[in-house]
């Protein structure tokens, strides 16, 4: 049975997802579809509750998780947005993007020495597919180039694009999405949870759907939402389109009670109180 949640901010979307999952038998639900209407927006009080819970357990921080999807701390944001004909701004944006890509690729040999990274990271698969070394396909830049082309041609909606679930990074239709795992990957352990990021341009807004095989709602979900939001913001800044909605489809969502035990209930309570005190209604 699928579950659909729609909220304005990352924080209340995350909380509603955790709350829904926690109420389910076994703490797991199939096909949890969470929509964030305003990607990037957060409620500080809720983030702080989760951040403390993660720190207490020695888990990765929210920002560390988010940087596996988009390494914002290495992106020298030039503070301008792309627009057709503004050559100087385009040059600055291109330089900033190149700095982002090259910094990351420089680090890649070292990043691959981390547990779980042997076959590449999410971001390395985006900028140098298949993701283990420099010189691969830069899917992100291909998307930027295509979006700019659409913008120059006055296209605000492209409803002729098929959304291919298993998009090939070398496909002739680079706007189909971003592949982050290989279809021939036969692993049964340490399999990448994020499998695909799909992009849709509609009425001048860029929307995204991220598909996760197994979404850990405490350790990863919030950081994933932040990272995906930053990825969308990057693409919008580089192409001049407005930010649309972010949808995360978790084919299996997990409240991680097997790891956290009763602390899950405590976290749900604390986050719910933080949300309530912020004045934002989670409904």
């Amino acid at each position, binding site marked *: 049975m699928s579950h659909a949640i729609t909220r304005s901010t990352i924080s209340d979307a995350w909380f509603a997802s955790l709350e829904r999952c926690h109420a389910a038998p076994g703490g797991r639900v199939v096909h949890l579809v969470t929509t964030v209407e305003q990607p990037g927006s957060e409620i500080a009080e809720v983030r702080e509750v989760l951040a403390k819970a993660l720190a207490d357990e020695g888990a990765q921080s929210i920002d560390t998780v988010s940087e596996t999807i988009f390494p914002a*701390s290495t992106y020298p944001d030039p503070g*301008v947005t792309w627009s057709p004909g503004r050559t100087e701004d385009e040059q600055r944006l291109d330089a900033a993007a190149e700095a982002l890509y090259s910094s990351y690729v420089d680090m890649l*040999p070292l990043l691959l020495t*981390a*547990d779980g*990274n042997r076959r590449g990271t999410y971001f390395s698969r985006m900028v140098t597919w298949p993701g283990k070394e420099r010189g691969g396909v830069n899917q992100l830049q291909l998307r930027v180039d295509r979006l700019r082309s659409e913008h120059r041609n006055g296209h605000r909606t492209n409803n002729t694009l098929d959304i291919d679930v298993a998009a090939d990074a070398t496909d002739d239709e680079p706007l189909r999405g971003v592949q982050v795992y290989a279809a021939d990957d036969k692993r049964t352990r340490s399999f990448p949870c994020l499998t695909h990021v799909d992009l849709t341009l509609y009425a001048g807004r860029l929307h995204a759907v991220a598909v996760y095989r197994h979404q850990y709602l405490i350790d990863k979900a919030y950081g994933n939402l932040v990272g995906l939001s930053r990825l969308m913001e990057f693409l919008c800044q580089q192409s001049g389109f407005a930010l649309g909605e972010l949808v995360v489809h978790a084919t299996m969502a997990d409240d991680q009670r097997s790891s956290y035990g009763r602390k899950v209930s405590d976290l749900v309570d604390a986050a719910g109180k933080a949300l309530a005190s912020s004045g934002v209604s989670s409904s």
Partner: protein
Amino acid sequence: MKSDVPSGAPAPPPAAPPSSSASFANVRDRSVAELEGDIVAALRAAQPACPLDQPGPDGTPAIPSLQAVWVLSQVGAAVGTAKLVSLSRVDKEELRTIRGVARLVHRTIHAPAGAVAS
């Protein structure tokens, strides 16, 4: 981050090019304290988006762990090895502050030949 209003202000300088490994050319001769300064200088020059204004538990600036990895990659380039350490064996607490990274670099650089960095 986004702006749809043309700015009348003078354009800021273009993004600084990635720091060359020359920043750490003398890494073997540097103390931990000196390395802290070198690391901050390298980040300011080549990673302007890296926040350096929040103190960590040890009193030195807290940094994103990914920026710590970038520093390690630059030191590695300076000494001729792409994999200065194995991140799977590094205490992640050492990747959270300037001093943590400086200590990791110093210990790694001065480890006996053949020893695995940890």
